[in-house]
């Protein structure tokens, strides 16, 4: 039991969530242990992004029933920044642009906030250089404004760069593969794999192609606000080939 508790990062129980009075999640259960990669697939509007947002603590989402435990504690009252400082990371499907704020400044402040102290400049420069090289990112990125004028692929690379620098305990990756060409997808997947060993990962995706490169331990199907089917990587292949009708028929 003690062993299980130390490995368990996230436990979502009977989660019901609504937005402006509209129910989105309707009794969702999910447990992620450290070192596990979970993939969630489902039709548009099934509640996948809502799940990621509510775990991260987005204030627009209202938990009407159920609990989210992270590292053994109920996190309902934790602010977004407190969750981030406690090792939670969300790679956004649509990351916000921040005009006037350079990527380099943003990364330095973010890393200092999450680690609790500003990293020594020389060490941070090296760390940043290595991470950017791993993601084939040009140094000129650092002087650009955060996500402003970025292509879809550039935004996703910046998200993964933050993943590498922040080294979270729990990574929520919301459609990180969208907008990426084949080469960029491979680079991003390598980035995810490099942190996955010590991290619990929740990958939200529509496509098998990312899961060819980042092997999930568990694949879940989210339908109308509930996980209705879970299985191994073969489940994602079946969904890719046959769609969601057969899952719906089972329910």
């Amino acid at each position, binding site marked *: 039991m003690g062993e299980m508790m130390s490995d368990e990062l996230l436990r979502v129980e009977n989660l019901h969530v609504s937005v402006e009075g509209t129910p989105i999640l309707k009794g969702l259960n999910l447990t992620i242990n450290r070192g596990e990669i979970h993939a969630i697939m489902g039709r548009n509007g099934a509640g996948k992004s809502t799940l990621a947002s509510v775990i991260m603590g987005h204030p627009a989402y209202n938990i009407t029933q159920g609990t989210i435990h992270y590292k053994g504690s109920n996190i309902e009252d934790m*602010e977004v*920044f407190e969750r981030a400082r406690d090792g939670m990371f969300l790679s*956004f499907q649509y990351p*916000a642009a921040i*005009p006037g704020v350079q990527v380099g400044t*943003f990364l330095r*402040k973010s890393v200092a*906030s999450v680690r609790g102290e500003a990293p020594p400049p020389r060490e941070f420069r090296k760390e940043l250089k290595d991470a950017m090289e791993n993601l084939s990112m040009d140094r000129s990125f650092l002087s650009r404004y955060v996500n402003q004028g970025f292509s879809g692929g550039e935004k996703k690379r910046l998200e993964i760069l933050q993943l590498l620098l922040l080294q979270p305990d729990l990574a929520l990756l919301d459609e990180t593969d969208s907008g990426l060409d084949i080469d960029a997808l491979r680079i991003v997947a390598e980035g995810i794999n490099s942190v996955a060993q010590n991290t619990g990962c929740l990958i939200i995706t529509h496509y098998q192609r990312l899961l060819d490169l980042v092997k999930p331990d568990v694949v879940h199907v989210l339908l109308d606000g509930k996980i209705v089917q879970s299985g191994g990587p073969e489940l994602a292949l079946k969904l890719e080939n046959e769609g969601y009708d057969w899952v719906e028929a089972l329910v």
Partner: protein
Amino acid sequence: MTSYLDASLPTRSEHLWRYTPWSRVHPTKVDELPAVGELVIESDNAEIKLVSKKNIEHGNDIARIFLDNVVEKTHVLTPENKTTHVQIRAGGHAVAAHIHIESTQPSSVMFHLTGEAEWVGLWLTGNIHSNSQLSVGLINELSSESVLVRTDNWNVERDGEFELATLSLGGQRIKSDIRTTLSGSNSTHNQFIAVHGHGTRHDDHHIEIHHQQPHTNSKLTVNAACDDRSHSVGTGALTIDDAAQHTDAGQVFRNLLLSESARAEAIPELEVMANEVAAAHGAASAPLDAMQMHYLMSRGLNKEEATAMLVEGFLVDSFVDVRSDPVREAMQTRLTVHLECQLIG
């Protein structure tokens, strides 16, 4: 010279004085012409000549007539092909100065206005000669009790390029009236203003840009971040004469409201007599963007840190198109220092 005491005072029905009446920025009482001392103006890397006061057209504007009455000399600067740094220091009860720039070659001038004076009058004028390029930056870091009356008159000749950046951080009550005339064809003027409203600051910028000749271009960007009980006013008056065909002009006023008690007005006005022109204007006031806040907080920044970063970004963005690197970097550096001090303080 028109005597101030004989001049008629403006009423609040006049566009220029609607939001900040002259009586609120006069150093004493409006029917008085008090003794006014000299601002201290120094530069470490350029010669500034003090000459008899230049005769500048005041256009019956009461602030210019007042300054014309109280200022006795003109500080003349002829910048060379480098960046000139000018310190303007304000001490005592009431101080004023007239600074004139003759620009004949590509150059940048950075003004830094500081001091504790209760009242400061600053009249900037300049002539950007044909084919010349001038970039001017002005950082206002007056004490939190000061009143500033600023009037500008700039003239841009044929093929001249003039950019003017203002970072308004200090002072309690500010009235700026900045006028630029594009008197030569193919001339260009870009103006950038960033205002940080905090406490009970009242910051009123009136910007007039007058296109007199064809193929002239202008762009105005005003970003005001208003916190606490501050009040920002931005009024633009863009005039395109009938001779100024093929003009391209745009004005954008953006206000970021950081508290429920902060207020901001943005009133761009256009007067277009030519028919083959592109003229655009826009104004927007909004609170902090919830998605941006959530994004920054998801990266570990608390509410205060995220707000500070968004405010800094919003104001830095005012200067993103400043072409002079020294001017742009000076503005951004001072802004960062100012906001970090605010966050700590």
